[in-house]
């Protein structure tokens, strides 16, 4: 009894605490609501396993509680022995065989769902994207587009289209994960991995799922699945926004949204922002020295993108140092 009562109180409290907040969404009792067929089929496998494991959990924990209550000491002396049962071969065979059967069902169901999770549906023309994990941002290359369009942080795709992702990295291991659009795949230097999705309309968030350094927590990713027109509009106009995207998705992580500084130094007053050549070499090679270190965040950027970034920071970020100030920080 001593053990049962607090357990019950605890169970009720936990149930109350979680039921209320869980009513809003799925509450974390199942995967995030899927928005892509692979995520849907993963969710099915999840719920099948949940069914079996929940049943076993209830069986084991209630047997435990029942035996605790039923065979409790009741003031008997320690010298009083319980039934000297040494085992029961048939029972033991049953609880060996039963898990085998359950696990076989689970494995069978996983293999049944697997083709729908692994392979994209045959599509006339899937969209090919190269996803490059980079300390600390995601870069998307639209390899089908005429002028090798690119975006930073947010991937723009048409809803309903099959999107084939080639996931790579040059620096350290990252892991691509948008929960609503299926599972994870690591971006490993020296390897090419694949992932796909077919998103319903909407915007979906995720983040890097493999520790990749100081700013791992800031390495967000988003997928914007809109209309075909919106997608084509992005491909046609990506040049106009890439400077801002780079600033927001890459530079601002350390230097702050306005270049006011943060993890990295304040650069809003730094005249390098106005010098395209020096800016490009810092971005390409990084900085190692007494002022601190900066990763070579821009080592894969084209000169058009560097132009766009240089133009953007010169216009929107750079604030000439007030007259009389000697240092830009």
């Amino acid at each position, binding site marked *: 009894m001593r053990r049962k009562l607090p357990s019950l109180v605890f169970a009720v409290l936990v149930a109350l605490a979680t039921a209320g907040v869980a009513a809003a969404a799925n509450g974390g009792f199942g995967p995030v609501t899927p928005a892509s067929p692979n995520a849907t089929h993963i969710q099915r496998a999840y719920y099948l*396993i949940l069914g079996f494991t929940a049943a076993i959990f209830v069986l084991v924990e209630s047997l*435990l509680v029942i035996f605790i209550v039923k*065979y409790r000491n009741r003031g008997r002396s320690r010298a*009083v022995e319980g*039934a000297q049962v040494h085992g029961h071969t048939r029972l033991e065979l049953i609880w060996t065989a039963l898990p085998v059967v359950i696990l076989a069902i689970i494995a069978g169901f996983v293999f049944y769902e697997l083709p729908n999770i692994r392979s994209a549906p045959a599509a006339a023309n899937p969209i090919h994207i190269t996803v490059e994990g980079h300390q600390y941002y995601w870069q998307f290359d639209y390899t089908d587009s005429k002028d090798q369009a690119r975006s930073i942080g947010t991937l723009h795709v048409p809803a309903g289209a099959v999107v084939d992702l080639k996931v790579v990295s040059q620096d350290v291991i990252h892991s691509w994960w948008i929960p609503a659009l299926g599972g994870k795949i*690591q971006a490993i230097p020296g390897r090419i991995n694949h992932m796909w999705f077919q998103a319903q309309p909407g915007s979906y968030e995720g983040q890097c799922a493999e520790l990749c350094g100081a700013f791992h927590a800031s390495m967000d990713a988003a997928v914007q699945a809109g209309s075909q027109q919106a997608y084509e509009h992005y491909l046609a106009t990506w040049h106009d926004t890439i400077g801002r995207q780079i600033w927001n998705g890459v530079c601002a992580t350390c230097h702050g949204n306005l270049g006011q500084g943060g993890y990295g130094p304040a650069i809003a007053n730094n005249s390098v922002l106005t010098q395209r050549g020096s800016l490009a070499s810092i971005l390409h090679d990084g900085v190692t020295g007494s002022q601190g270190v900066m990763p070579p965040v821009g080592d894969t950027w084209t000169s058009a993108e560097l132009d766009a970034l240089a133009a953007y920071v010169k216009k929107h970020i750079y604030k000439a140092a007030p007259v009389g100030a000697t240092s830009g920080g």
Partner: protein
Amino acid sequence: MAVRSEAAYPVGWKNGRVASWLVTVDHKRIGILYIATSLVWFVAGGILAILMRGQLATPNETFLTKNSYNEVLTMHGTTMIFLVVIPILAGFANFLVPLMIGAKDMAFPRLNALSYWLFLLGGVVLWLSWFAKGGAAHAGWWSYPTLSENFPFASPGNGQDYWILSLHILTLSSLLGAINFIVTIHNMRAPGMTWMRMPLFVWGIETYAILLLVALPALSAAITLLLLDRTVGTHFFIPSQGGSIVLYQHMFWFFGHPEVYIMVLPVFGMISEILPVFSRKPVFGYKAVAFSTIGIAFFSMLVWAHHMFTTGLPVGLDSFFMISSMVIAVPTGIKIFNWIATTWRGNLIFDTPMLFALGFIALFTMGGLSGIFLAAFPVDWQLNNSYYVVAHFHYVLFGGSAFGFFGGLYYWWPKMFGRMLDERLGKWHFWLLFVGFNLTFLPQHMLGLLGMVRRVYTYHHGGLWEVYNMISSVGSGVMAVATLVFIVNVWRTNVLRKGVRAGNDPWLADTLEWYTTSPPPPHNFDSVPYVTSPRPLRDLRRRLAEQPQ
């Protein structure tokens, strides 16, 4: 083989109160040193955990960020695994194995002392890395390259080198210990103690030692190559120069998964000792429990790549590792059901060791079942590296291993020190830890499913994320209070000497360690009874009871 250092007569400085502990080769003292040292690091690693939960209690917290957070998570994991769970089990094994098998000491007492001092050294080296150039290691406890390489934006400085050096020292310590345990168990059992009459804890240690011997060399090799990469310019794990990161992943997890069972099989053994004694019954199905230990150990060496389902392995490999991982659930299930059956029709006595043993079953079941989701590789693609995994392995390693070894501490404390830990404080300790543990780790399952990845120093979401994180942080505070209660209990029992004096056998237990005095004399036993069953002490009690007065 004779035990010489603990001479019966004073022989100078070696008998001093402190010096006698420094030069001891007595397995009991070495065991106690192991356990005490591990508990100190348990507190240190726990403080790191509290720091992390403090940072994560609310969104956008700025109390411990970026590199500091990464250092703390790396040191927490490495400390808890290599400086707490493995060595505390080595401590129990040192203290108990010779006593349980009726031997005078371990087979190689000096080697045994060397193992302990290497462990202490390895731990100190790891914690010195806080002072290293560039800070402590911050690439996580598995230290995947290239983040652990000596690159400017990965792991420059010497923290990672300290980490490697420390693990090399600890590996050597564990290997020497493992050899010692195996030789002792194989050669020094009491007359009549056949393999099928051996205490189940000794079975646990036998498999623990074999797994250490098999798995640790893979770790040594991996971190040696990493060290060469970092210091002399090789490129085993640098892809741009032809190296392979996936190779490191294989090498690390070939060690890393047996490691999980290294940390839990001896605890299974403890539970198999405690449950029968406090149920006043024999363990249900001795052979099934012993052989399932061996089964788990065998299969634990065939499941390593389930840590690598998101690496992009061929689907055939993923399938193999899913099935092998599921297979391991079968012998584990056998144990759980046999333990529950052990309580059936018993006379259950809820002393603190029993509470921890029952708590272990309740929590480990949860950790085992959540593991089935992770074994199914497509589901793992969703759950991998999320807080779900953090919850899962804490249910296994804290709800499992730590609850088990706390139960073991309460159970064997009277044998180690001759005094019982206080039952009232013990029960407070258990209940606070049980409630705090579930508050901390149950919500983390939900966080992972909501999309929170592990090893992030902050998050921006409010709502459920904030609620679950706050519950989890509050729970970690409750666990800290529980640990304080335990410290007070130890202080009260051993320092203030208020613990009740224990006789040879305060629990009316079954195994040989309870045959000798509490604490045992340096030579352990004046004589050992001939062993005719796995429960020699019960046999003895019955023979005494049957004798005509």
